[in-house]
């Protein structure tokens, strides 16, 4: 894109002034309050609250379940994107439309639907129950809820990259004697890999902070199925603001690091795509 300086255009002062004012009032000052409140705890107190056994158990669960769910989405999301871009079959547009549902459905509704579905008297939970598998109120249930909300991220990040792939690349590989498997793993996958990784990171970041779709299915037992956002909520409800603040700061720092990583990945992914 050509870099132009539209210095002749009016309204910079007004637009910029309003942007910075609104950003400060709604986002920066409230977030700064959180950082300031944690600072006022003092390092020893902060560390004690942030590293309590119950908090550490919640971090392990939150980040572990998010990682597992994002990995599942990276694998299956890539397959879904591939099928949507490459194959034509009846019902394709229905599948394509369904992929966006987890974006648009309020999280509480997703949580209720998955819980009802997987409960022992639900459609799928009933089948699993007969096999002796319990999903609701276990860690497996948390992972399934996070797979649901993360599903669109990988598909919608990989899909456009696959769609813009030059056919010449694959034809050249085939003409040069590569098998189809070699073409897919050595030619297509390296080009698509950055977008899969970006989709993974987006799904992971979303899953780490997720609350609504998880609380109904998780059972929320301390040390076992209690995610960090829920532990923060519990602390708030008990007016334990110090405890909630310490946990929230840990989460905030993690989210900010992920945001920077995703932006860097996005840049890499774009340069990679443009280079091919």
């Amino acid at each position, binding site marked *: *894109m050509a870099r132009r300086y*539209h210095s002749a*255009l*009016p*309204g910079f002062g007004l*637009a910029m002034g*309003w*942007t910075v004012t*609104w950003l400060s009032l*709604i*986002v*920066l000052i*409230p977030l700064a*309050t959180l950082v300031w409140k944690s600072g006022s705890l003092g390092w020893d107190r902060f560390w004690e609250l942030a590293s309590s056994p119950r908090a550490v158990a919640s971090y392990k669960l939150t980040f572990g379940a998010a990682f597992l769910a994002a990995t599942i989405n990276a694998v299956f999301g890539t*397959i*879904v994107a*591939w*099928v949507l871009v*490459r*194959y*034509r079959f009846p019902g394709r547009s229905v*599948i394509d*439309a*369904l992929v*966006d549902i987890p*974006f*648009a*459905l*309020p*999280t*509480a*509704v*997703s949580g209720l*639907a998955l819980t*009802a*579905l997987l409960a022992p008297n*639900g*459609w799928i939970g009933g089948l699993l129950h007969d096999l002796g598998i319990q999903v609701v109120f276990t860690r497996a249930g948390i992972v399934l809820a996070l797979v649901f909300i993360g*599903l669109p*991220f990988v598909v*919608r990040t990989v899909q*456009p990259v696959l769609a813009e792939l030059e*056919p010449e690349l*694959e034809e050249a590989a*085939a*003409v040069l004697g590569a098998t*189809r498997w070699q073409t897919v793993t050595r030619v297509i996958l390296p080009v698509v890999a950055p977008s899969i990784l970006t989709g993974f990171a987006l799904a992971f*970041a979303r899953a780490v*902070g997720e*609350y*609504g779709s998880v609380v109904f299915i998780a059972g929320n037992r301390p040390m076992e199925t209690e995610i960090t*956002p829920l532990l923060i*909520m519990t602390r708030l409800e008990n007016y334990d*603001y110090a405890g909630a*603040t310490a946990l929230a700061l840990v989460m905030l720092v993690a*989210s900010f690091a992920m*945001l920077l990583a*995703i932006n860097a990945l*996005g840049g890499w992914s*774009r340069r990679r795509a443009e280079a091919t």
Partner: protein
Amino acid sequence: MTSETRTEPRWVRSLLGGIAVVFVGLFVAVPVATILHQAFSKGLDTYVAAIQDPAAEAAIRLTLTVALIAVPLNLVFGVAASWAIARFRFRGRALLLTLIDLPFAVSPVISGMIFVLLFGLHGVLGPWLRAHDLQVIFALPGIVLATIFVTFPYVARELIPLMEAQGGEEEEAAVVLGASGWQMFRWVTLPKIRWGLLYGVILCNARAMGEFGAVSVVSGHIRGRTNTVPLHVEILYNEYNYAAAFAVASLLLVLAFGTLIARRIVERHTADAMPLPPAARVEKS
């Protein structure tokens, strides 16, 4: 597409197609069907009664009120931010873009909590608010603030890539020909960005009406007064009133479908496929 060199053996295609259909079917279609099945499990009368319940109607009114305040405010912010960022180059521009994205990265629970730390009874401004008999937390202002926070980037994130792609030549021409700033915006910029703007507003509205975590922290769950529709659904569910919970939840399902249909309509009026917000950040920033 079907040329020999660019496709897999038939059994591989069937296998991958099958995996995709089963995965999306199990994870999306079946849960959606469950909502409708549960909502109508006790018959149409129960469904209608659940939605016409005074507490449900109060929740619907509150949700509409919150969206009616939060969405226009973020609309104005989105237009201002995208005008500044897409039409001018200045120091700190990349930082500003990242800061606008921040609410996407923050957990909903933290999004609500920061306003409790500011305006709650023991918050920074708590004593002052109490002295002046003002209530923010566990009242409408807190719910509106948390909603504005979680929907903060939506409109700006739709408009910035759109306006960058369009360029500002027409606006420059209008100004050179003597248009005032307002005339330029009203007759040149607004017609250019209206579909992108509409799409941003639709997404912003869907999130505003459906937000659960952030609003849950600041609402206080006072039935008939500070319960939004998602919170009302939660309460009904926790009272084991499943049919009613899913009946009210089905209203939010309709909102989700409406949002996706509106997206298709907007896409038809624009050349580009409209990405949903997080994807927009990756592809176009």
